[in-house]
């Protein structure tokens, strides 16, 4: 097995302490949606057919949520609202204690740095090798190169791809790209990890490894939300579930 969930990086242990010390606007909610609606602009649809309607839920610090629902139910749309890639048509969203509607572009960028995102299609930069892809969030945060090297090599070891660090994305298999995407999402120790169907391109064994990785991060204090329509996985990891259908939240718990 290439990456062993029992060998957590020592540095990541610090995350839990920091998370415990930080408080967010007096509450310890990492995500809070209150009557949120989303309508895509320029969408060629009837105006009443919003992508998301009347969504309210909360995720506490250190929590884990599955986000389930059939294809087209609005899972990706909801995650986009969380990682500030869309603005709601109505309603109130609080991420890491900040009201999404009240922050300027700069604050939004700084907030994004504290949210790790694993996109369904990875979105690795094709012109950079695995190492530089994983290093991106740290370099954006202007960490020293010594720090970058220490953390990136540690994360690459953790996901079992240290030996592939000089490979570019097109030289990596789908599963390897997936792990690089995970490494990039967590290398800067985000408070919140958002993963959109991360097991979509993986076989069962790879999916299982990925879940070990994600649950390990969650145990270390990272709040996690994972969209999936893999029912077997949800059964094996019985975390609370948010369930969407036709843009409405039909189950929370």
């Amino acid at each position: 097995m290439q990456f062993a969930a029992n060998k957590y990086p020592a540095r990541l242990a610090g995350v839990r302490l920091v998370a415990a010390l930080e408080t967010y606007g007096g509450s310890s909610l990492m995500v809070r949606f209150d009557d949120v609606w989303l309508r895509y602009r320029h969408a060629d649809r009837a105006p009443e057919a919003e992508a998301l309607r009347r969504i309210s839920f909360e995720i506490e610090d250190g929590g884990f949520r599955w986000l389930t629902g059939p294809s087209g139910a609005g899972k990706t749309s909801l995650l986009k609202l969380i990682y500030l890639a869309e603005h709601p048509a109505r309603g109130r969203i609080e991420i890491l204690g900040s009201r999404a509607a009240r922050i300027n572009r700069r604050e939004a960028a700084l907030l994004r740095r504290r949210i790790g995102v694993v996109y369904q299609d990875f979105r690795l930069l094709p012109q950079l090798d695995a190492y530089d892809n994983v290093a991106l969030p740290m370099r954006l945060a202007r960490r020293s190169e010594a720090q970058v090297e220490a953390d990136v090599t540690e994360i690459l070891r953790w996901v079992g791809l240290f030996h592939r660090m000089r490979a570019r994305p097109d030289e990596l298999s789908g599963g390897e790209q997936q792990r690089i995407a995970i490494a990039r999402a967590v290398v800067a120790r985000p408070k919140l990890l958002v993963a959109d169907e991360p097991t979509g391109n993986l076989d069962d064994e790879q999916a299982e490894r990925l879940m070990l990785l994600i649950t390990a991060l969650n145990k270390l204090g990272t709040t996690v939300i994972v969209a999936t329509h893999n029912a077997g996985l949800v059964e094996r990891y019985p975390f609370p579930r948010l369930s969407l259908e036709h843009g409405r939240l039909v189950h929370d718990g």
Partner: protein
Amino acid sequence: MLGLRAALSDRLLPVLVGAMSFLAALAIGGALACATLAASWQGDTAAALTIQVPQPTEPDAANDGTRLAAVQRALAINPNVRGAAVMGEAEMNRLISPWLGSDAAGLGLTLPAVVTAQWAGAGGTAALAAQLQAVSPGTLVKTGLFWAERVAALTTSLQACALAVLMVVALVAAAVVAVATRSGLAQLRETIETVHGLGALDSDIAGRFAARAIWLALGGALGGTLLALPVLAWLAWLATPFTGPARFSDFFNLPPALLALVPLLPASAALIGWVTAQLTVRGWLRHLP
């Protein structure tokens, strides 16, 4: 570091900016040449009095000596005229050689005599002209004021043209940078969206493009300006019959003002590149959430 190293790899940008710099250098050279010519022509022309006496050796109106002598006598007793002097052959040759060649006397033309003087009178020279007309019909009196005004007006309008050329050239350069930046943005769209999603500030991304635009614009402008220098030197050499003796050593002797202004071209191009790239990228990023 952001994976935007390939931003603006366009080779067209430096070439076009170079062409714009070449034109700008010529425009600056033209404006300066204008000013230099104007200055060397004007001198103290405003107060200068030039009297042309046609057929200077013919008898005057009173048949009392030559026409030139009569004019000289009249000038000598006029209190408003100072320092009247008949222009010597050498100076006449120098004045007309740009037009007729260095050996004007050899052409066998009967040239009018020219008397130069300073006009110290308050009003116009009409009375003087009438007086000279009486003793030597056909004599022309000209003050430099007229020419000084004409030359000043000409200089001003030529310099305005040069300024207009500079502005158009700067706008075209900015447009070239904007188009190149937009094509770079389109090419790197996915990369930029990803980097933006990872929390890159607008200033991070715009700074990448602007840094590259500076170097491309600077390189192009340096090339264009360097190419313009020999052309300017050649033009300066062509202009030497007007401004002074033509010697080969003058060839690379560009006016100091030009040598001072020309280095500003690459600097301006770099600034235009930086500002345009910044504005273009920041405007484009507004479409991202």
